């Protein structure tokens, strides 16, 4: 049965070097390198050529993946779960050969294709026909293969009439359909599907799910599926791999792994997530420590129509006599959903003595529809002087719950939930 294994990873690891002086960009500029060299030279000259190695070393090792061992058999559908930054994308990148592992090895049997490449390499100036060939070649299809499937691809994407129109004139729906259609007509032994694909509308997602199910069942191909959507994972996968901080935390039947993962996420919510240090601005009189967003109705996930409880732990450096608080919530497009503060609401707050404090903001009967959200939080004085502000650093998600008679509410329904009633009164003529 061992010959049935299509992917075998043995103590796989990927190391990144993070340099601390370069914060935003991954690439360096020659100017910085030269400036750094000159600075070091000047410093060593000033120190009488004392050794500068060790000191001034701004590079830190970071293991995005470490000690990863697993085997995936033919026809198996495996879900990979874990928080952002757990190493899921790095793993997929290694498997699709985009980046090389730093240690360990993987054996891959057969062609790997990833749906994270949907639409990669489409050129807006070229026509639909030209882009099919371009995209196919990029995905690793041979020209003869594309020619053979050309009609099918076009028919599936429903773009027959626009084949000779530049893709820049396509609607976004046509664009996605064409891109997906090309990818769908590849015949890989191993299919990698990243969350990224969840950007499409509900129809598109359904299409993807349908495809993946078909691929695994009828053709015995293996699928690696990465998602934050536990429902989708449970529906599709038989086995799960849970990554945490670059290591495999748990692996086994999908239901068990998902359960363990969900439980740990809830534990995490109780203790709260730390604010990342550089996201907080202000005069430093208040330090924002950690936050949690939870559903006060026991341990259910956050949901529309339920209450939402923001709990922010802070440390006050010196006493603040008059304080004010505010919170803003944005949706995934950066649209401000709500912004509330105690000054404008006329809510007086007690003086904050030096020491730790917890702020609770409870939003009753949330009207926001399911989806990802971010929030900003700030502490200031009533004149608007900011003591501490964390911009867009609180992330939370409202889970899918039955609304409007469906369990898949997306942005076509808008941003907020309306408790609605329709009535029609025919007028007598």
């Amino acid at each position: 049965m061992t010959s049935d294994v299509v992917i075998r990873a043995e103590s796989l690891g990927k190391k990144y070097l993070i340099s601390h002086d370069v914060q935003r960009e991954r690439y360096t500029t020659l100017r910085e390198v030269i400036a750094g060299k000159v600075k070091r030279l000047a410093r060593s000259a000033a120190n009488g050529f004392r050794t500068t190695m060790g000191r001034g070393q701004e590079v830190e090792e970071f293991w995005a993946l470490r000690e990863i061992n697993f085997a995936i058999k033919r026809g198996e559908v495996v879900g990979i779960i874990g928080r952002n930054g757990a190493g899921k994308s790095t793993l997929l990148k290694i498997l699709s050969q985009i980046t090389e592992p730093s240690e360990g090895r993987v054996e891959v049997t057969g062609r790997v294709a990833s749906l994270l490449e949907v639409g990669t390499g489409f050129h807006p100036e070229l026509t639909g026909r030209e882009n099919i060939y371009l995209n196919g070649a990029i995905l690793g299809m041979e020209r003869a293969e594309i020619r053979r499937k050309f009609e099918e691809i076009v028919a599936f994407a429903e773009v027959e009439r626009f084949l000779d129109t530049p893709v820049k004139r396509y609607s976004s729906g046509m664009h996605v359909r064409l891109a997906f259609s090309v990818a769908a007509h590849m015949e890989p032994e191993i299919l990698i599907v990243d969350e990224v694909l969840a950007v499409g509308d509900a129809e598109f997602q359904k299409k993807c799910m349908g495809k993946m199910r078909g691929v695994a069942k009828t053709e015995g191909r293996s699928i690696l599926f990465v998602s934050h959507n536990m429902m989708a994972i449970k529906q599709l996968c038989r086995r799960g791999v849970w990554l945490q901080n670059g290591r495999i935390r748990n692996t086994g039947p999908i239901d068990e792994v998902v359960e363990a993962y969900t439980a740990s996420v809830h534990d995490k919510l109780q203790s709260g997530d730390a604010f990342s240090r550089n996201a907080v601005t202000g005069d430093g009189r208040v330090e924002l420590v950690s936050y949690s967003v939870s559903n006060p109705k026991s341990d259910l996930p956050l949901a529309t129509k339920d209450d939402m409880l923001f709990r922010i732990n802070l440390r006050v450096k010196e006493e603040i006599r008059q304080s004010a608080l505010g919170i803003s919530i944005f949706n995934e497009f950066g649209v401000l959903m709500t912004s509330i503060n105690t000054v404008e609401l006329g809510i007086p707050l007690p003086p904050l003595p030096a020491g730790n404090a917890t702020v609770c903001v409870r939003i009753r009967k949330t009207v926001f529809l399911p989806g990802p959200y971010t929030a900003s939080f700030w502490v200031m004085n009533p004149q608007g002087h900011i003591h501490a502000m964390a911009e867009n650093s609180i992330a939370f998600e409202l889970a899918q719950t039955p609304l409007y008679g469906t369990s898949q509410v997306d942005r076509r329904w808008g941003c907020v939930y309306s408790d609605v009633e329709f009535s029609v009164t025919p007028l007598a003529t």
Partner: protein
Amino acid sequence: MYAHRSVAAQGQNPESEDMASLTIPMTSKNQANRTSKRVLVLEAGRAEHHYWRDLWTYRELFAILAWRDLAVRYKQTAIGIAWALIRPILSMLVFTVLFSRVAKLPSVGHAPYSIMVFAGMLPWFLFSTILNDASISLVTNSNLISKVYFPRLIVPSATILVALADFAITFALFILMMAWYRFFSDWRLIFLPCFLLLAILASLGPALYITALNVKYRDFRYIIPFILQFGLYVSPVGFSSTVIPEKWRLLYSLNPVVGVIDGFRWCLLRGESKFYLPGFLLSIGVVIVSLLLGTWYFRKTERTFADLL
């Protein structure tokens, strides 16, 4: 001061096109090629082992990327071709006036000065176009690099074909000029492909080196125009390399473009331009060394590209 944000993008209403058919057309006739699959081993430093074979496997991607660049370049036909025409004509005029009329430099043999300048500009523009396009190619194709695997060498190499298309247009212009001056080349013309190949190899070495550097040091692209500007004046484009004193001639040939341009002039100008063999051999040597060096550096840095872009 409240943290208000401008309304960036509203959730758009996707078209409600009919997407009832959810069955996926996956042909299952490929059961046979199951047997022909190979086992791929991924580990640190392993990419070396199958690199050159992969380069061959991905030759269609090379062709299609080159074709894409070409198609995009000449999609707005007027501008595409006009650009390939205007640049050499203007440069030729400037060089002819500057070096022939003002500096009173001699041409080679009986060849008209502008013909001589043009014969030198043909390989120079090929060189500078490849160097320029290749150096930015990885950055402009970063979406590909960070999402799909293929030998990265394909991307800068594919720019050669676009440069060759430009070369063809410039060469057509050259033929027109020869007709105008009633000055035609002879049997030596059959050697043109050899010198063309040499010109491409001479460009590829430095191009690969600079391409790799440009990924790592993103401000390197600001240096490239300067290098090209400088190269234009130290290379014998606007003048004949015979104006260089004999004792410096060999040293001058360390610039690989010198050998290429001399070769072009020799085969295009009926041998009016004499062939300086030691210098030419030296240029070939430099071309080979820079090609090896460029390929080596590119290959060395290549596997980090996806992490840097």
